[in-house]
């Protein structure tokens, strides 16, 4: 059946002093407790608005820690890809070089040593002037072909060069590249063999 005749109740205007009920205490305590819990959760899990942090990661340091370091095969593949794109045009797809264009990398003493800094500086800064490679004298000019590569790509291509075509040099890591780049920013191209020998490791 339909409702009773509704009586008009005019409730006391809200806020009138001394009249009517007030907020119960339990609602305040509950609100504070939940605000605290919610705040703790947000602090722990939100990554504080960082666009790179997705669940399950909670902060940038943790995300960096879980970045995979390339396995050897992946680095070589990455290095080969970079080499084929940037270096092979002059140094040849097999690292044999071409007279008048670029000296060989296969078997080169400048590649097969333990130096890191020098190997990184050559593609980063460029090399002009006379260099002796495998007993032959080369007087050409190399632009800083590697200056635009990322640390990871530069490290990969140098590692690739050092492990290919019979070369047996040490791997180059992206951290090495980053450190060396930091020290040589703004330097001019290396001046020939004298310049190369002057590089301190």
């Amino acid at each position, binding site marked *: 059946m339909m409702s009773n005749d509704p009586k008009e109740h005019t409730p006391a*205007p*809200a806020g009138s002093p001394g009249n009517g009920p007030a907020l119960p205490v339990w609602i305040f305590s509950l609100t504070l407790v939940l605000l605290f819990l919610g705040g703790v959760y947000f602090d722990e899990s939100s990554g504080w608005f960082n666009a790179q942090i*997705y669940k*399950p990661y909670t902060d940038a340091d943790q995300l960096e820690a*879980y*970045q*995979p370091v*390339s396995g050897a095969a*992946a680095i070589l593949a990455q290095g080969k*890809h970079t080499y084929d794109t940037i270096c092979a045009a002059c140094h040849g797809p097999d690292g044999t070089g071409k007279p008048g264009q670029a000296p060989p990398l296969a078997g080169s003493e400048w590649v097969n040593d333990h130096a890191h800094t020098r190997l990184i500086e050559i593609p980063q800064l460029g090399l002009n002037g006379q260099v002796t490679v495998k007993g032959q004298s080369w007087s050409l000019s190399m632009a800083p072909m590697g200056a635009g590569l990322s640390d990871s790509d530069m490290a990969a291509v140098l590692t690739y060069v050092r492990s290919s075509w019979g070369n047996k040099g040490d791997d180059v890591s992206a951290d090495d590249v980053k450190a060396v780049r930091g020290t040589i920013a703004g330097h001019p191209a290396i001046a020939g063999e004298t310049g190369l020998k002057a590089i301190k490791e």
Partner: protein
Amino acid sequence: MNSGCRIFLVSFVALGLSWGGFVIAPAIQLGTQKQTAVLNSSLTYPEQRPGEATMGLQVYRRSGCAACHTTQLQQDGVECEVIVTGMGKTPVAVSNLLSSLNLTGLSKDDAQSASDQITAKGGKTEIHIVPTGGDIARGWGSRRSVSEDFLWDYPVQLGSVRMGPDLADVGSRLGSYSWQLLHLYAPQATTKDSTMPPFRYLFVVQKVGDVPSPDALQLPAEFAPPSGYEVVPTMAAEKLAAYLLSLHANVPLHDAPFTAAAPPEPTKAKK
């Protein structure tokens, strides 16, 4: 509250805050996103889908596929595995050590310490990052979906219910064009007991001409048309299949890292 103005103000503040947080903030943070690089590679991600696949997204929308399928993979956690790549000069010492070490399901710190112990004995190790979660355990993908996966899409068809499996990486695990078409025409032919409705309206049953059409579906007996007839996909079905084959989420990114099994290659839609 005794005035309409105050109600308006309170409502304005309340709605304005969430509008700022969930409309303006994503428009800025996610809407200005650019392509990113695949980890340990010089490839950019994502590549734009080929033309047919982009049109296929519209067929996906029109067919209401998002009502039953999601294209968002979830990930519950991440763990590390230590892989031994070389035993070094003292293999006996290394293998003795290995028998006492746990090498899977580790946190990064534990993995690093296990790896250090092995390299101290001369062995060579790699630490692999492995995402974990229900979707990954079900074989639906190798990592979670992230915002870069949807950079080119309009409208983004994330889906909200999983009556069928997730499709974020379906191009990698079911990458056969003919399988996709067959599944669309007769889901029960490819997946027994499937509750997916057949999408027969995306196909045409036509009389076989002088030569059977090269596009005709190879159907099992109970789904085949009467003899003398063949089932041929419409353009909509072809675009939809192309779109499904273009769905990949299998390269590691900075915000969804994992150790890829093989070096990443540019993804191609196979025909």
